[in-house]
């Protein structure tokens, strides 16, 4: 992370210049006008640095970059989705620094949150795209239907056309939620709309995948902070997720892990084990195969996460989690009924075995019948 200081120099000049018009206020100015103290702002910077595994020396650099960043233009496209991602990102319990950072971006288009409607809304998107060509951030939630464009349109524009048009001038794309990152629920078998992810369609732009159903709010503010501080995208794993948040499995960071290792499991949702907070593996927990930050950053201002509330992890930040063989089936169990197949096989094999055995026997008997004694005359031949 020591070379990160150099990355700051790559920041677009207009991102660090301090504008004067209300629209051009820097993040620092916006936050001061909202009554955020310098102390709590620096606390946020420290938390962001530690969360992203940076050295404490980076804290003033993050603070400096964030304070002086001009509100970046963000265009938010919602396709085949349930609005859960938007709900997650906007519903902080108290006005936190994260939500203020989020409020402080210039969200130029978001059809759930914006006041404008119809042609005015689309115009806002087009203006933002034109004015900030090559610099705006494109955030996408929801999957894109490729079967029939009519499954999901906005202002008569198909999701596919809108994504391709908006992606052209984007500096980077943040795919938010499992639908945008991997197809999510619309992509679940039998995928009636032919849903695909953003990454399936766009290959020539940096894409940051922030999966989850919904994703953790602090993860998206972390990714935004990283982009504003360094002007680059964070290090990603093999399926495009920022490694700082998706680098470890839920299982490895779970506070119930010691129970797994001791062999103490909840067998049902209301037995003694469940009440004592034992491991939920037998109830179908997907923690061992799921990479996300739930176990460390937690939800609702750090209150808890699903496993802490007594429900197994459903693996929502992984591709195709919906088709993973059932949320309540333990990972080591087969996803199909093997017992039935085994019984039918055993019956069939027993019949086949008897038939083969009978054949072998008759072969043996035939060999015995054909047996003739060798005489000394035979050997002379």
């Amino acid at each position: 992370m020591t070379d990160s200081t150099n990355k700051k120099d790559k920041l677009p000049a207009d991102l660090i210049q301090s504008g004067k018009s209300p629209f051009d206020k820097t993040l620092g100015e916006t936050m001061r006008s909202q009554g955020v103290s310098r102390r709590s702002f620096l606390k946020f910077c420290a938390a962001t640095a530690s969360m992203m595994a940076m050295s404490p020396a980076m804290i003033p650099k993050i603070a400096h970059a964030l304070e002086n960043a001009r509100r970046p233009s963000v265009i938010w496209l919602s396709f085949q989705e349930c609005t859960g991602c938007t709900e997650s990102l906007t519903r902080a319990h108290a006005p936190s620094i994260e939500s203020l950072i989020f409020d402080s971006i210039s969200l130029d288009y978001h059809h759930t949150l914006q006041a404008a409607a119809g042609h005015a809304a689309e115009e806002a998107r087009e203006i933002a795209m034109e004015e900030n060509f090559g610099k705006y951030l494109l955030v996408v939630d929801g999957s894109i239907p490729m079967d029939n464009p009519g499954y999901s349109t906005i202002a008569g524009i198909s999701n596919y056309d809108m994504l391709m048009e908006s992606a052209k001038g984007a500096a980077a794309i943040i795919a938010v939620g499992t639908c945008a990152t991997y197809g999510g629920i619309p992509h679940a078998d039998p995928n009636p709309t032919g849903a695909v992810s953003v990454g399936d369609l766009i290959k020539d732009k940096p894409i940051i995948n922030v999966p989850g159903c919904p994703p953790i709010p602090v993860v998206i503010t972390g990714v935004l902070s990283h982009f504003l501080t360094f002007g680059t995208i964070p290090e990603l794993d093999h399926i495009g997720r920022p490694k700082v948040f998706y680098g470890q499995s839920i299982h490895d960071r779970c506070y119930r892990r010691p129970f797994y290792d001791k062999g103490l499991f909840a067998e049902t949702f209301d037995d003694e084990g469940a009440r004592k907070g034992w491991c939920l593996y037998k109830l179908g927990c997907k923690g061992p195969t799921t990479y996300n930050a739930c176990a460390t950053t937690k939800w609702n201002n750090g209150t808890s996460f699903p496993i802490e509330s007594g429900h197994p992890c459903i693996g929502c930040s992984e591709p195709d989690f919906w088709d993973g063989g059932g949320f309540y089936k333990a990972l080591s169990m087969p996803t199909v009924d093997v017992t039935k197949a085994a019984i039918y096989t055993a019956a069939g094999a027993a019949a086949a075995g008897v038939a083969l055995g009978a054949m072998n026997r008759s072969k043996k008997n035939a060999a015995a019948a054909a047996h003739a004694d060798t005489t000394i005359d035979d050997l002379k031949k």
Partner: protein
Amino acid sequence: MSEVEFLSWVRGPGFQIAIVIFIAGVIIRFAEILLLGRKTNLAEAKGSEMGGGLRTIVTRSIPDKSTFKRSTFTVIAGYIFHIGLFVTIFLFAPHILLFKDVIGLSWPAVPTAIVDAFAVISIIALLAILVHRMRDNVLKFITTKEDYVVWLLTILPLITGYMAFHRIGMTAPTLLAIHILSVELLLVAFPFTKLMHAFTLVLARWYNGAISGYRGVES
């Protein structure tokens, strides 16, 4: 194929195919062995076949002194990895869940640290056995390709299981899928290779004991 699809396949159709081949193969081979029959023994019985047979099934689990002296390494290393396989296969909690799902029976598990230790010891024992096989002239002479294939099929689930448990090298879904696939390969090969000894050893020991029992001598 995404890694989750891969995992779903090995947990679903892949596992089903492996189980069908395994069960069909084992039952057909057993039927063939049993139905082949034995020559009628014309000698007068001096003792019970059953008693000698059943006793030998148990007593042959303990090597006699001369065998132990002659092949100390083989006996010790063999015991270690067989016990290790028993612990890792039958006493690891996620495995017990699999048995419960398929055959309906369940039993208590041991802590993961113990299973982990047995897995490591078994892997070391199997590696030592391979080195011994390749360095001993007599063993090398009687070794066939099948012996190496079976050795590989036995050690693979241990290694992939160890990697999946500790999440080494790849992502968790891929590691788990590879581990399950390695077990499926073992199941498919089982009835058609010397792995079948896990079942036929009972027949063979009983037969040895029964011959002695019939003659009224100690086996």
